[in-house]
């Protein structure tokens, strides 16, 4: 036992789940990123057509905010209403089809087909059918977001451990009871995956609809500002769109954390 000098070592306790790191580190990254962009654009004289300095973007966006405001409201309205219709709609379709095994088989490929089809291809046609009222863009959002919500929800409804269904059987639960109290609750994690993807699809749908036609909406603003070389404002609009998407996503995430307690 005398081969080594037995040095008593004392180490720092090992950290698990380093809490502060997860909050502080991203903030530092953000600050560094903005500072670096600022420095980079100014020091190297990068053309403002490629990337204007962040401070210019912020200042110009704020000073032109009254002009952007109605467009912001409009896009927010389209995304929010479209999203809020898509979620229950998509879930309802899934709930109906999940009741019959044969329907699940028949409809699943159709839903995949709908998810794959970029629904924005229908925008010109929708305008043809329903006129150019910008509010109709809600329809674009709905048809873009609904299939992905249905797909995930249907997955959740059909993937359930047989034990859970056995529990329902062992207490003599009726079909509606089993669906509401077991199948639906059990599918919550997948339902939320679908809703989150629905967020993304909704914003994409709204912005692409703006691109195709019209003079309202943040998407159309980007096109306009870019045309008239107001690059800073284009970037400002992009940031606002990003904020809309992120807020929507964050709200869904907060609700998810409240409901899906058991995931982690």
């Amino acid at each position, binding site marked *: 036992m005398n081969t080594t000098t037995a040095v008593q070592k004392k180490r720092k306790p090992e950290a698990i789940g380093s809490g502060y790191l997860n909050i502080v580190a991203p903030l530092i990254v953000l600050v560094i990123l903005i500072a670096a962009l600022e420095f980079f654009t100014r020091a190297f004289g990068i053309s403002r057509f490629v990337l204007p300095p962040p401070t210019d973007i912020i200042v110009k966006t704020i000073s032109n905010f009254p002009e952007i405001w109605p467009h912001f409201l409009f896009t927010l309205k389209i995304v929010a209403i479209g999203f809020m219709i898509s979620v229950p709609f998509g879930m309802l379709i899934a709930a109906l089809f999940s009741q019959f095994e044969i329907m699940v088989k028949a409809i699943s490929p159709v839903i995949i087909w709908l998810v794959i089809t970029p629904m*924005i291809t229908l925008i010109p046609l929708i305008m043809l059918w329903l006129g150019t009222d910008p509010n109709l863009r809600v329809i674009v959002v709905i048809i873009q977001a609904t299939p992905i919500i249905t797909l995930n929800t249907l997955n959740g409804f059909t993937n359930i451990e047989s034990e859970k269904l056995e529990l329902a059987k062992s207490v003599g639960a009726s079909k509606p009871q089993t669906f509401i109290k077991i199948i639906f609750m059990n599918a919550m994690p997948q339902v939320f995956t679908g809703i989150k993807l629905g967020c*993304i699809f909704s914003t994409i749908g709204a912005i692409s609809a703006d691109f*195709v036609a019209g003079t309202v909406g943040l998407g159309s603003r*980007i096109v306009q500002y870019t045309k008239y070389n107001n690059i800073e404002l284009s*970037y400002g609009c992009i940031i606002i769109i990003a904020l809309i*998407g992120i807020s929507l996503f964050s709200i869904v995430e907060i609700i998810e954390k409240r409901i899906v307690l058991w995931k982690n």
Partner: protein
Amino acid sequence: MTKKRIESFFAPILMFLLIFTGWEIIVRTLKIPKWLLPMPSEIFKSMVVNFPAFWPHILMTIETVLLGFIIAVPIGILLASLITSFKVVNAALSPYVTFLVMVPLISLVPLLMLFMGYGMNVRVVTVIIQSFAVVNMNACTGFNNVPILRQELMQSLGASRLESYRRVILPTAASDIFTGVRLAGIFATTGCISAEYVGGNMGLGSQIIKYSQFLKTTESFACIFYVTIVGLMMYWLISFAQKKIISWKI
């Protein structure tokens, strides 16, 4: 067993037939004008008859989607590998990984066109920025969720980082990565079509706009169906690759 297999094969086919015949019957009985909503039979006919005219655009769209997608997937995976390899970087960047997916990056398209013109490059870039983020996000999830026991197995053998990555981390994350790749396939087609909307006169997206402006709804629909076929092709390609690569079960 066999009965079930027959069911899951024929049920969707029947469903599609039902949808198209229903559509056909409605349009015929209500005598809806062609420019408003064409019959499926006319659309299919147009898909065949106008094929020579569509072909360069189909080809262009396929090229753009595939090229962008093929570049985006490795970028997403590589970026995720880097991010998740270092604890601090992982903590610092993980919220941005989600944010990047949440931002409709197609809003950058007009700006990209400003300094890249209306060529194919700009569309490829659009496809890349629209689809790499979702691969990145899912790959990060996969890399971060490697079961501890598997990591410990490699540690107990004193495996190097690269060896652990190759033998354990990458295969474990494979199914999550494929979830991302599948979504990226969808995002790539959507991204490509929106880029074609905004500028230029090549690709199926531009054709859809053109035909609908001239009230040639049948041709418009034919193009949409071709876009769908491109999307389905992507989907099959990805599913095929997944089956080839993930040959094991969990």
